[in-house]
């Protein structure tokens, strides 16, 4: 016995998803403009090159989010009887791989240039009759690349939490990695200007540690979600208490002797089963229908529930 709904989000959250989509389109356009600009000024600065590659990689979470939002709400069909909700989980994995890759790349690249004691050569250019050190131009380009990232990232975080959308959250963290790297690169270039050749690479290495940490956490979460781990919160990866609340609720019904539930994440929403031992000699059909409605009223995230009447609760469901 099962109940499913094609449209995941309640009406009050739909505008939020629309806003998230607009933010992601802005992110993508703005990233493309930075990628072009940075390519034009990067010269031989290590931090600049890495910041550029990071920007290129950081388009991945945005792209995968935008693709996923086109698919997630499609109706279940013969080939996809569970619907398309999980496309967000796949997008989350893609984004997490990108973020983790960014961190690794940054760490390896800056370690190599520290190890080979590479002194960044930064020349000058002529601008309207004045000689300008390219370092200043790079810093300006980095400022341009970081401040919008910061604003976009902070705007996405609360939306991601409300929508239980992990790819959106990862994208916000990607943007954090972006602007942190850019700030480090700015300080690095300034320090190179002051004669500390190692500052550029050292700053990048320092930032890479936090990017790798975030990336690894997300990668782990993404894989575990695809392995049907119990639902966890978007922001801190702690178990979502909603599952316990459902179990308590079901156990409180007088037509149920005992019950056990298990849930997993399908992208933004939860799918799961409720195993119940029924009171003897009763027809559960009308009760179950009422029960499903009651559980679904707890939270919009609960999208698909299957009731399974059993004689004895199964042992091997955690």
């Amino acid at each position, binding site marked *: 016995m099962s109940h499913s709904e094609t449209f995941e989000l309640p009406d009050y959250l739909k505008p939020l998803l629309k806003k998230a989509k607009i933010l992601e389109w802005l992110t993508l356009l703005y990233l493309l403009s930075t990628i072009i600009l940075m390519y034009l000024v990067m010269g031989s600065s290590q931090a600049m090159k890495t910041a550029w590659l990071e920007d290129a990689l950081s388009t991945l979470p945005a792209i995968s989010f935008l693709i996923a939002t086109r698919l997630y709400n499609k109706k279940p069909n013969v080939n996809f009887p569970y619907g398309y909700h999980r496309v967000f989980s796949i997008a989350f994995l893609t984004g997490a791989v990108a973020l983790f890759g960014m961190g690794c790349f940054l760490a390896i690249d800056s370690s190599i240039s520290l190890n080979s004691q590479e002194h960044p050569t930064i020349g000058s250019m002529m601008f309207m009759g004045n*000689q300008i050190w390219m370092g200043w131009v790079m810093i300006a380009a980095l400022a341009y690349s970081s401040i919008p990232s*910061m604003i976009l990232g902070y705007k996405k975080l609360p939306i991601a939490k409300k929508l239980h959308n992990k790819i959106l959250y990862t994208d916000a963290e990607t943007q954090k990695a972006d602007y942190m790297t850019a700030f480090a690169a700015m300080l690095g270039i300034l320090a190179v200007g002051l004669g500390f050749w190692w500052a550029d690479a050292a700053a990048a290495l320092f930032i890479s540690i936090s990017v790798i940490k975030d990336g690894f956490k997300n990668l782990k979460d993404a894989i575990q979600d695809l392995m049907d781990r119990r639902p966890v919160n978007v922001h801190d990866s702690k178990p979502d208490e909603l599952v316990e609340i459902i179990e308590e609720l079901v156990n409180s019904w007088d037509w149920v002797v005992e019950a056990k539930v298990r849930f997993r994440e399908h992208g933004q929403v939860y799918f799961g089963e409720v195993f119940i031992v029924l009171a003897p000699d009763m027809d559960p059909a009308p009760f179950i229908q009422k029960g499903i409605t009651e559980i679904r009223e707890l939270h919009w995230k609960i999208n698909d529930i299957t009731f399974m009447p059993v004689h004895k609760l199964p042992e091997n469901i955690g």
Partner: protein
Amino acid sequence: MYYKQLAYKLLFFLVFILITSCNIPKDPEGSWEKIQKNGLHIGVVINAPFTLQKDSVYSGKEIELLQNFAKENKLQLVYETGNETDLTDKLENYEIDLLVGGFTKKSIWTDKVGLTTPYDNEDHVILIPKGENKLLHFLESYIFKNKK
């Protein structure tokens, strides 16, 4: 709260730039200061018409460029001839200050040494030790002024 934090960061950054900007860029290996004391050591790979040598007299387009640069900055010139491999090694190890010999922007040595901006319209450059950005700044300043 977040925007306020950002504003503070930016302010701090701007003050930092203002304080430091007058002496930027510097040389990590102190080339420009060394040159003032010990003279500008240039490596010369003989390659006419850029660099020529007759007895102990050096001439050629690039030699003249550096002679004028040295005169303008009141520097002593010290020459050292050799082959490309040896001289780029020396440049990489900061044993000489500049290297001339008709190199272009597409030089195969760019992994080991730095380049100035081209001084003509055929992408000819002067090789410079990596990261010696103050020396590069003065030399490029001269190149910009005299480029037609």
